């Protein structure tokens, strides 16, 4: 059987978890300002970075994401006063654990993007897409996720 080769260049899938009050508005500003940035990013809006459970990040990876952006209000700018401070602590610990388990932490990017920083958002996405393009698809994780198909119990 002739094998059909996929010759299209690798297009990274990036999932961005952003807070409603700063980064989402920042991304909106990038749009209204007609800034160009890669379309590889899928934005998921949350009330606050404090709401972004670490399980969501794992879920994104197992769902096929090659990279993740987590972004919210700058310190002291949180709509709920301290949500981003709590989130920051969580990410310090979570990054360390991910690295210990062997998950590539370069693929998870954290940022503060305010509602006025449309340009920073465009840059962030641009940089992330470039980085993930360099790193290639996250096959390690996908291979582990595809275990069920590979080890079909047909034998």
């Amino acid at each position, binding site marked *: 059987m002739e094998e059909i080769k996929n010759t299209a260049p690798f297009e990274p899938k990036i999932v961005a978890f952003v807070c409603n009050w700063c980064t989402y508005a920042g991304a909106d500003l990038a749009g209204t300002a007609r800034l160009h940035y890669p379309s590889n990013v899928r934005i998921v809006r949350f009330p606050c970075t404090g709401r972004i459970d670490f399980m969501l990040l794992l879920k994104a990876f197992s769902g096929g994401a090659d990279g993740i952006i987590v972004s919210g209000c700058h310190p002291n700018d949180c709509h709920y006063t301290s949500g981003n401070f709590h989130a920051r602590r969580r990410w310090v610990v979570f990054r360390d654990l991910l690295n210990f388990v062997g998950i590539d932490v370069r693929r998870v990017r954290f940022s503060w993007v305010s509602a006025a920083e449309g340009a920073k958002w465009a840059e*962030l996405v641009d940089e992330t897409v470039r980085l993930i393009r360099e790193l290639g698809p996250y096959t390690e994780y996908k291979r582990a996720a595809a*275990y069920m198909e590979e080890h079909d119990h047909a034998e």
Partner: protein
Amino acid sequence: MQNKMSEYASLLLREGKVDLVIGYEAGSESGTTRPFIACSAEDAARLVFEPARCVHNLAVYLYKKELVSGKKVAVTATIPVAESICRLAVEHQLDSLSPLVLTCGEEGSVRQWESPYSELAEFVAAHTSPSSSTAEEQLARLEAMSREERWRFWTDALSPCVKCYACRAACPLCYCTRCIVEVNRPQWIEPWPVPLANVEWQINRVMHMAGRCTGCGACARACPLSLPINLLTLHLQRAVKKAFPDDGKGGNVLSTFRPNDEDTFIR
């Protein structure tokens, strides 16, 4: 030492100061012990207490409502058990129960601790022993590996896991009445035992232990496949201590913050 503890427990039960003493009795194999709940002075004669042989973490029974609800409870505590009890108290899990905690000093006398357990915490801090050298060696070996090697190590090491959740059941700090693996909308972690879901379950379990785990090792001891899951908690315990050295004594490191927390990784 052994007799003193059982005498003390028997006295407490006879005088009606407590209804239950959670302790240890001799196990079916010689040299082992298993958890035992003494309900009467006669029962108390079966209690044994030798810290070297009493490895189960009894703190896990203190929030089993079917066992302790409405009862006055005492628990015989080795240092790791006492440490878990202090942690449970900090997290307000023992507010209504306030169990009597019985420990043994070097001289063999029984000491009784009551709520609030601040003095017990001092006693524990003075008696904590360092983690086992084999665990330390394994941890050092893992930390020296490259990231890719670690990923291979963990996906391999956890692939035999059958998701029995014994690690969860044995842990005194895993006390949620509804765990996220029992929730299926959304299905956070695939329920069948496959390597990725096994790794995800451990990440989830350990992450919920961040800054709380006392390092008693009950999770790894309960594992029927002897998976090295205590290395995950041990590593995270270290990482938390390094990142937030002065926090967490009166609460949870993740439910507080400092304005100057590390942010070098945030763009």
